[in-house]
Structures are given as C-alpha cells and as structure tokens.
C-alpha cells in the first residue's frame, strides 16, 4: 500500500485529477473542431463568399449538447458531494485544537477530552519576515486526525492548512471547524486565506508535525521541544 501523505489532501488531489481529465476532454472536443473550422471554411473571393444559410440550427445537436453536459456536471457534483462528506466528517479519536484568529495572528489551544485547555500557543505578528520562533510553532502528532475549532476575535480570517489542502473561515460569533491529518513529520505552512487587512499576508503559522510520542512529551513538558528536536535530529 502506498503511503498517504495527508488527509483530506489525498481525496482533494484525486478530485482535482478527475476534474482535470474532464476539463481537458471538454476543451479538446470544443477547441479542436473550432480551430479546424477556422482553417477550413475561409472566405475566398469568387469561391466561398457567403456561409451556408440553410442550417439555422439543428434541434438534435442542440438537445445533445444540453443533455450531455447536464449529465457530466451532475455526476461531477455528486462525486464532489461524496468527497465533501469525507472532508467534513471528523474521524474518531481526533485531537481537538481551538484556534482563534486575531489581527494578525493565531491563538491555539490544545483541548483534552473534556474540552479543557491543556496548553496555549499564541503567534506574534511579524510584519517583515516569515521566520517563526520555535515556541510559537503549532505542534501536532503525525498520523493522527486533528480537529480544529475556529473562531475569531475581530474580523473574518481563514485557516488554511496547506499540506492538507483544506481551509475554513474563522468568523467572529461563530464556531466553524475543519479536520486534517498529516502522516509525515516535518514543518508545514498555515496561511490566513480570508482578507483581513494590512497584516493579511503575514498572518501565517508554522505547523510542526512530530511523532506521537514526542508530541505527548511536548504537551506535558512545556517548551523544551527545541532541544529535543536537536537531540533526535528529525
């Protein structure tokens, strides 16, 4: 079995490929005859000065290219519905993070089973660089589903987990959610994807995916992850 890098990115990638194949086929079916007609039926003085006035239309053809696209898009939408259901159904046993957006950063709270906050990380606004201090990285376990509850303190933001190809808005007064799972340890980008003002392009975070045992130690042990990382050299 091939190794899956991240969810729901896996299904998203498949859906993109399905769309791409359909789009390329429709493109070819439309553009190739179009180009061929442009080449073939040119105006030639004395020979071809006027187009065919007999065919004003053809009901059969017109019905055909109404019904076939209807079927294609309905099938695509139904497929998308099926994928969407997986994207929105959080697997059992997910770790829950409560993320609150503000201008311009994130507050991340790690919740236990009862919904109590175990640990909190707040990112600071850095208007010029994309460096992140070690203690501000959002640490999550590899290979485990993560549920993110989202809200905002001020304006609307959006939490985009780039490796998982999923986003959801953080709206003040509402709690929205998304879930993801990344199987390969490493550092990944998180961006704000809903326009939120001057600092929008610097409202980001670094997601640090570590092996589960290391995560448990980090969650209990405070902020000495930097040292541990250096020791284990992942």
């Amino acid at each position: 079995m091939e190794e899956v890098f991240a969810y729901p990115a896996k299904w998203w990638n498949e859906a993109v490929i399905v769309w791409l194949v359909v789009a390329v086929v429709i493109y070819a079916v439309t553009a190739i005859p179009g180009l061929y007609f442009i080449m073939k039926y040119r105006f030639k003085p004395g020979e071809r000065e006027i187009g065919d006035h007999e065919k004003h239309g053809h009901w059969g053809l017109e019905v055909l290219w109404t019904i076939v696209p209807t079927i294609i898009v309905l099938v695509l939408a139904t497929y998308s519905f099926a994928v969407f259901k997986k994207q929105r159904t959080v697997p059992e046993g997910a770790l829950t993070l409560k993320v609150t957006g503000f201008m311009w950063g994130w507050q991340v709270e790690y919740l236990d089973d009862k919904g109590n906050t175990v640990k909190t990380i707040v990112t600071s606004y850095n208007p010029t660089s994309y460096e992140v201090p070690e203690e501000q990285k959002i640490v999550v376990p590899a290979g485990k589903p993560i549920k993110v509850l989202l809200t905002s303190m001020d304006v609307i933001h959006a939490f985009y987990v780039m490796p998982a190809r999923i986003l959801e808005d953080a709206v003040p007064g509402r709690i929205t959610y998304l879930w993801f799972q990344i199987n390969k340890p490493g550092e990944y980008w998180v961006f704000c994807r809903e326009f939120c003002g001057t600092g929008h392009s610097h409202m980001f975070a670094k997601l640090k995916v570590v092996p589960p045992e290391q995560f448990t130690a980090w969650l209990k042990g405070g902020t000495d992850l930097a040292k541990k990382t250096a020791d284990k050299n992942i």
Partner: protein
Amino acid sequence: MREAVSVPWFSAGLKEWIFTTDHKKIGILYFVTGLVAFIIAGIFGLIIRFEQNSPGFQVVSPSFYNYLLTGHGAVMLLWWAIGAHIGGFGNFLLPLMIGAKDVAFPRLNALSYWAFFGATVIVLLTLIPGNQIKMMWTGYPPYATHPDAGVTAFYVFAIHLLGVSSIATAVNFITTYIRMRAPGIGFWNTNLYIHSLIVANVLQLIGVPSLGGAVTMLFLDKYLGTNFFNPSLGGDPLLYQNVFWFYSHPAVYVMIIPIFGFFSEILATFSRKPIFGYKSMVFAIWGIAVVSFIVWMHHMFTSGIPDWARVLMSYTTVLVAVPTGVKIFNWVATLHRGAIILRSPMLYTLGGIFMFLIGGLTGIPNALVAIDLGIHDSLSVVGHFHYVLGMALTMGIFGAVIYWFPKITGRMYPENLGKISFWLVFIGANVLYFPQLLAGFLGMPRRYPDYPPIAEWVALNQISTIGALILAVGVLVFLVGMIKGLTSGEKAEDNPWKSPSLEWRTSSPAPVDNFGEKPPKLEEDYHPYKYGAPPTF
C-alpha cells in the same frame, strides 16, 4: 423645454455634452468615462503585479497595496465591466438595432450618466492620501467597519450612486425594448446583443437593490452605531455576505452576457452566416439569468454556512455550465460551413471565446465544493475570473470597439493596429493568468503582497509579470489605434461589413435622428443575420 438638438456628437460643444439627452452622446460619455477608469485601474493592476513579482515588499506598503487591490477590483468591475459597455454600447446600439429614435426616457438616461459620473468623482477622491479605501471591492464586515479599512463612506456612496444609475438605465432599456421597436422587429428577430442587454438589465433591476441594502447596513454599522454585522451585539457578519452576493453573483452575468451578445454579432458577420441555434441562444441567456440567482453561496463555501447549503449551491452552480456550454457549442457550430474572414474584430471574438472556454472550465473546481475547500481565496480564483471577466470581457469590448467604430465615428479602425494589439493582448493575457491558476492549486493565497520564498510560487509570479508587460503593451497599441482611427482613419461606408442588421442601415456616423422622421422600413422576413452580398474590404 429644450429644443431637439441636431448637432452630431463630433461637432457638439461643451454645453451640448453636459445637457445632452441624445442616446449616442450619452453612450460615448459612458464609454469614455469607463475607458479612463479602465486605464487607471489597469495601472493599479500593473503596480500590484510588480509588488507580487517576488517575495518581500519592494514597490508599495501593504496598506497601499490593499488600496490598489480595492481600487483595481471595484473600478474594473463596476466602471469597465458594467459602465463602459452597458452604458456605452448599450446606449449607442439599443435604439439603432431596434429602429427607435432614442431611448424611452432620454432625460432619465442623462440622469443615469450623471449619477455614474458622480460615482466616478467619488472614486477619484480616494486617490487623495487619507481617503483611501482598503476593504476590497467586496467590503466584507467586520473588516469594512474596522479603522484599518479606510474611509468606508466613499465605498458606500460610490455604490449608491452607481445603483441609482444602474436602476434608471435598466428601467429605461427594458421599456425602450418593449415599447419602441420598429414595425417588423419581434422577439425572434431581435439581435442577440439586444436580447443579452435586456437580460442583463433585468438582472440589474432585480439585484441592485440588494447590494444597495447591504452597503447601507455597512454604512449604518460603521458611522451610526447599529449592529447588523456585529456578533457581540446579536448581528451576523455572514448576513452581509448573503445579501452582497445575492446581487454580486448575478452581476458577473450582467457583465458577461452582453459580451456574449458582441460575440454573436461579430461571429455571424465574419462567418457570413446566421448564428447557429438562434433560439437556443435566447433560451440559454434567459437560462443563465434564472440560475444566476440561486448560486450565490458558492462565494461562501468556506464561510461556515451549513454543509447542506454548500452542497445544494454546488449543484445549482454547476448547472450554469449547461447554458454557457450551449452558447459555446453554438458559436463553434456557427463557424461550420461559414466563409470566415479573420478581421481584427473576429480575432478578438475568437480569442474572447477561447479565454471564456478556459475560464469556464477552471470555474468548475470553484463550483465543486470538495475542490473549492482547497482553492477558495487562492490565486487560482484570481486566474479564473481574470480569464472570464478580465480577458473574455475586455477582448469582447475591444472587438466591439473595432466593429462598431465606423458607425460611431464614421471612420475605420486601423486594421494593422487591431491585429497587432490582438496578438499582444491574447498572448500577454495567457502568460499572465495561466500561472496564477497553477499557483492557486499549489496553495498560494490571493491578496498577498508578500509571501514566503517558495520556489514554485516565485517562478510562477515572475512569469505572470512578463505576461502583464506584454498585455500592457497590447492595450497601449489598441488605444493608439483608437486615436489614429479617430484622427486619420479611412472614411467608413455606411455598411462596411455588409451586415443585414438594422444599425448598419443608417449613415456612418449615425445621424442625430437615427433613421429620419419615420421608423425604418424593414423587409417582411427581416433577420439580423441574413447575409447576402459579400463584403468589399
């Protein structure tokens, strides 16, 4: 009462321009205003492109960048994609194509223009430092009510004035079409451009009040302390998004459907044959209009609305592909067994249809909710709507300018400049927007002046910049062609393209009273696409 004016536009004085109620002069005023706005917003776009060319802040500050984005978006959409061609070409062509003397309410028409002009003044005032608006053309609260967003009042009042203008124009055009057609013009032999124009104005009439309501609530919230969108006092920011997109999604069809009309007119003329499937074309535009009002939530797929609403709107949205597909297939079928002449308006039309095809196909992933969850608010959305609303629309307008240039000015647009500008615009646009589609699928968010140095993003953005420069040169060549055509263009015949359509049956440039005292006499079996004699050019 003012005397009926008998001065044609090219010898009209300033007083006549200000007080005119002539649909042709008002059309020219609209178009020129829209074109100036297009040039300014285009320069904004270029600065945006240079800023995004590489990571870091090189050209402008992030706050000024947000002003540029807001200005570019609002002006391109509301001035260029609505004002310039609905106000401009719609005014000029509607009475000519249906054989009327003027629109139904000429003075209301003048009011429409001057309201549009007032909005233009307001939007130009934002160029003054301190007046800048930075809430994006969508103006989402709570950000739009936040001090960081700038002077929201300018945004609200510009939209109110444009709304007055649009509603008056819509009432005017719809009445004109219903009441003032020359004898012999019925529903089934009206030009497709007129059908498109009427559909667009019906959408305006139904939709604009909704937008007016949205921005009025925004104004009340920001300046008078109401709480429509303030969640801490019982409001809801998503209310704005619903009310805003209820108009602003149909608005994209207001923008593009008349362009489809241009495509149909030009395609038929330069294929020398009737448009294929005329009736299904009419059904298709009305079909798009109806569906357009039940798809707005696809702009809110990630906003936290219930999942069932997202799926429902995903289904309705993909249905838009059906009537637009019918139109594209009918255009391709029109080419079949034609006698195709590749003059520059035809090149622009074929190029515009090509751009729309790519734009349409890249719109599908935005409609499919599962894919949208990964590309919402990414650069690929920017690429998508610049294919459809950006370039298909601009190429449609450029083609229309060259095609109706003889009827408007009495001179021909220089063909060589038309061809050169077409190739520059076409190549430039594809080099500019295709990389944006890719960057979005690779995760790059939109509205980012700065971004981390991710190699693929940087490379794609730099290719885009090259495309933007080519496109800018193309637009410049097109504008030079307009000036050259106006000043030293070849004198035009009354019907240079040998089109059977009604607007070509009066002299060039169109005289003040259009067809003289009496409505034009039409043959029994008049149809705008019945081509006879070959053209002489």
